């Protein structure tokens, strides 16, 4: 009996690596600390009522952002481990198989469990406020999306200590991700972690499309909508058409592994290239999905800090929509070398070059918005200005890669690695940081410390260029991606060392950001105005943090930068139209179903990973039961009475006036 338990445990838990034992201990300690802390301060009820069951878009957004920061930490540690291993030739810091796991989890976590939730967090917090809505279209579904993401991320991260991490790269190309070459459970963790959170992403996409199209404040025509909701709309269009491809493709891969199907296997007539074809149909739109909202953020910030209307509003809208549709026509440039023939490669090379044009249009729009503006350089604007040269160079190397014959040289070299980090860090990460700094006061009611923020900004930028510029050179010198070590004879060590030093700078920069948050909380200076940046859009017209119902009365919109124009009208002494009397506000009730249902998905996923039917079946039954319970529940909303709104508003206004 004891022997049995021992042999089970030695396979079930990952053993043999001191780093992982350390992780085990710290996970147990942190979990214990959380449980003890919550019990000691008697906060369980509070946590359940205020956060775990909430359907309030602002709280869901905050939870997304916290989760994404934790994931940024994990993904960043992975990155530093890799850079440490590559710092010098013949390093013996990470073994080859461990290195494979680290680059796999780094990629998956950074794209799917860091960038996506960070983006969804900003969607949630800001979009309803900017379009003058009281919530998203489907608050229940919104909570469900978050908890599905959370379960998926937990399942994926669990593979670190239980069963073993996936090691077939962030897109898990078969045949290496197939059962024949990868019999462990790592790839199954990969599939189910992404699958569960992917369902959540898909629902968020639907939710925000409907929210933006149907819930704008009266008078806000689509062409008067701020740019961030436009970018969210175009990103969500790409989400709803690309995530189903991911879901289907991973399901097929899972059938190969679980049920002996032959989609992507080497035997039985399967075709591994079909997987690569399908996964990039999702994978390419995915990178535009995460970068489009960043473009929206930059547009908001540029016009706020240059105190000018955004230059070329219509061309910006047009460019974003074009990008989101065109992103579906470029996928084959990820496998020019697979041998599809000249006409396929020529077509996809052309579409790839074409998609650079609308992106270029945007860069000019931002530059012209800044032109002759009275620019002030607070941290959100700094990140925006840091973004432009970074993204332009990153984009240029992308155009180089799009030349199909040249790509045969660049393919899977460090040149490629440098390129996509350039656009994703320079575009996405800088963009979300800019957005977080910009909207932080709206979220929490106080600004982040500028001085530490500037330190973080400069450290990030210096670290970034130190880390990735040498990698272009390394790529041209012949260093291929995913090698775990190299010899002295290659002549790569100087560049690699510089690159590692740069990565260290970025790690320190992240610590500065954490310190910045802690410092700003400790030396809290409450923002009394609700409008600390002299903003232009509706979210700045209400107190911060926004009350539960956002707008006591829905605003009547007549201009593109409605809040800015409103302030001008007031300054000019124009009479402010009287607001309508308060009415009871219809709100959705909190619900525990999303978190319970996501936990059921988690259990089902875990059962699938280990082929434990006794866990899978109850898990799936739980999912169906949750759906039915929700369907049969007709009591899921309530009204906030007028006197409560009046009370809340007068308290908030007392602070603001």
């Amino acid at each position, binding site marked *: 009996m004891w022997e049995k338990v021992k042999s089970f445990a030695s396979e079930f838990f990952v053993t043999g690596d001191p780093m992982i034992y350390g992780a085990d201990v710290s996970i147990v300690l942190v979990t214990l600390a959380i449980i003890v802390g919550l019990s000691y301060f008697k906060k369980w009820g509070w946590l359940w009522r205020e956060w775990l069951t909430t359907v309030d878009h602002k709280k869901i957004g905050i939870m997304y952002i916290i989760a994404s920061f934790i994931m940024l930490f994990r993904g960043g540690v992975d990155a530093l481990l890799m850079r440490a291993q590559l710092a010098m030739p013949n390093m013996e810091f990470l073994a080859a198989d461990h290195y494979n796991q680290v680059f796999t989890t780094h990629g998956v976590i950074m794209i799917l469990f860091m960038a996506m939730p960070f983006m969804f967090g900003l969607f949630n917090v800001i979009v309803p406020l900017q379009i003058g809505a009281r919530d998203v279209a489907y608050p229940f579904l919104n909570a469900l999306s978050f908890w599905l993401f959370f379960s998926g991320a937990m399942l994926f991260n669990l593979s670190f200590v239980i069963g073993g991490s996936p090691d077939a790269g962030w897109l898990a190309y078969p045949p290496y991700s197939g059962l024949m070459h990868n019999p462990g459970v790592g790839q199954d963790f990969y599939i189910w972690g992404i699958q569960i959170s992917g369902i959540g992403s898909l629902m968020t996409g639907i939710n925000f499309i409907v929210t933006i199209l149907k819930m704008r404040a009266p008078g806000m025509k689509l062409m008067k909508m701020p740019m961030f909701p436009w970018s969210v709309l175009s990103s969500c269009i790409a989400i709803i058409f690309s995530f189903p491809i991911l879901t289907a493709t991973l399901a097929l891969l899972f059938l190969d592994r679980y049920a002996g199907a032959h989609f992507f296997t080497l035997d039985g007539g399967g075709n591994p290239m079909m997987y690569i074809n399908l996964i990039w149909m999702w994978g390419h739109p995915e990178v535009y999905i995460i970068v489009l909202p960043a473009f929206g953020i930059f547009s908001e910030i540029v016009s706020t800090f240059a105190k000018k209307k955004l230059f070329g509003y219509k061309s910006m809208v047009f460019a974003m929509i074009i990008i989101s549709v065109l992103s579906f026509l470029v996928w084959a440039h990820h496998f020019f070398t697979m041998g599809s023939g000249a006409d396929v490669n020529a077509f996809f090379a052309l579409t790839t070059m074409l998609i650079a044009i609308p992106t270029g249009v945007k860069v000019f729009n931002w530059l012209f918005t800044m032109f002759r503006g009275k620019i002030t350089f607070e941290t959100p604007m700094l990140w925006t200005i840091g973004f432009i040269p970074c993204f332009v160079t990153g984009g240029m190397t992308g155009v180089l890669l799009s030349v199909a014959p040249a790509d045969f040289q660049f393919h899977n070299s460090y040149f490629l690695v440098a390129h996509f980090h350039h656009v994703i860090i320079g575009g996405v990460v800088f963009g979300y940081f800019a957005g977080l700094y910009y909207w932080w006061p709206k979220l929490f009611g106080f600004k982040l410390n500028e001085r530490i923020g500037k330190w973080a900004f400069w450290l990030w930028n210096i670290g970034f260029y130190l880390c990735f510029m040498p990698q272009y050179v390394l790529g041209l010198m012949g260093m291929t991606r995913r090698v775990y070590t190299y010899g002295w004879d290659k002549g790569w060590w100087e560049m690699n060392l510089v690159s590692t030093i740069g990565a260290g700078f970025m790690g320190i920069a992240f610590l500065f950001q954490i310190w910045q948050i802690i410092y700003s909380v400790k030396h809290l200076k409450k923002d009394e105005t609700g409008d600390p940046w002299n903003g232009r859009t509706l979210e700045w017209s209400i107190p911060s943090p926004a009350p539960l119902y956002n707008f006591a009365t829905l605003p009547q919109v007549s201009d593109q930068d409605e809040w800015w124009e409103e302030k001008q009208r007031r300054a000019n002494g124009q009479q402010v139209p009287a607001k309508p009397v308060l009415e009871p506000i*219809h709100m959705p009730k909190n619900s525990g179903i999303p978190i319970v249902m996501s936990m059921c998905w988690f259990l089902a996923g875990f059962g699938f990973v280990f082929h434990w039917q006794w866990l899978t079946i109850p898990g799936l039954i739980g999912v169906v039961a949750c759906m039915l319970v929700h369907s049969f529940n007709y009591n899921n909303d309530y009204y906030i009475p007028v006197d409560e709104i009046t009370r809340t508003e007068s308290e908030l206004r007392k602070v603001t006036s």
Partner: protein
Amino acid sequence: MAQHETAHEESHGSLKTYSIGFLCSIVLTIIPIAIVLGGWFDGMVSKVVLMGAAALQFIVQLIFFMHLREEQKPRYNLMALILGIVILLIIVVGSMWIMLYNMVAV
């Protein structure tokens, strides 16, 4: 939000339109079956006619059963559908082109 009935009750077809749609679908199902079982056409022609019949039936269902024509402006449902079909065609035709007709190796 307040429960207010929309003044103009949207139309949902009538027994007549549903029956017309149903008859059309029956006919459009029988034709391809006859083509295949009777072996009327072969090769490419057969494929084109079969896909044409399926596409027609799709349109019949959209109009008579899903009432796509009666949507109020702005016609987001129609726009979403058109975009969906475009992407669908990109996926299917693109995969066929890349995987079946262009392999240098095969």
